[in-house]
């Protein structure tokens, strides 16, 4: 039981960050919540003993995807429904 506590915490964090990503109207905050989701899922991969997949997920999911979203937000508008 004691070794499942980190997994439970990480899964709770995953659910919370996914819900936050859905509900934020500030798109920068939503992007950062999605980055937090990617970071937590890479932590979960590491706990499940797949460090290879964890490195890929941390680099692609938390790094590059967040950077692409931030560039897209800089090119358009920061709040939902602003430039539509």
């Amino acid at each position, binding site marked *: 039981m004691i070794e499942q506590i980190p997994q439970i915490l990480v899964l709770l964090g995953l659910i919370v960050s996914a819900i936050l990503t859905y509900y934020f109207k500030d798109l920068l905050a939503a992007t950062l919540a999605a980055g937090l989701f990617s970071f937590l899922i890479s932590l979960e991969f590491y706990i499940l003993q797949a460090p*290879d997949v964890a*490195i890929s997920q941390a680099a692609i999911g938390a790094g590059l995807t967040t950077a*692409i979203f931030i560039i897209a937000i800089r090119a358009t508008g920061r709040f939902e429904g602003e430039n539509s």
Partner: protein
Amino acid sequence: MSRIVRTAADIIYPFILIFGLYVVAHGHLTPGGGFQGGAVIATGGALVIVAYSYVEVREWLSGKVLMGQEVIGLVGFIGVALLALAFGQVFFFNYLNASGSLFGIPVPYGINAGELNTGGFVPLMNFSVGCEVWGGLTLVILYMLSGLEKEGC
């Protein structure tokens, strides 16, 4: 972005670069490899690219260099694999393994810390893939940034 973000990106970038090169170079011993290391390096490049404006980034980075890096990686990968045919072996035969030359010493027996100089051409493949992924993913970010017309924001 602000001056704080730019200074932090300047300071952090060399460490990300070294860590990515470490993951690439130790791909045949530890978790990770060419793709993961290249993605880590490209993440560092993306950090710097996001922190500066497109006009400033284009002074140091050109798409042609990154595309050439991609070409070098892919040609190196297939060239190392095709070189096995020159030795009279099948395609992708590991001709460098235990040959005594580059990356060629036999793997030590038993539990050990891992010998870097083993693996035959697997480290060369890792270097090729790392070079290719580095160029390719940085190019994605650079072309994404080229859509931004306004500067300095």
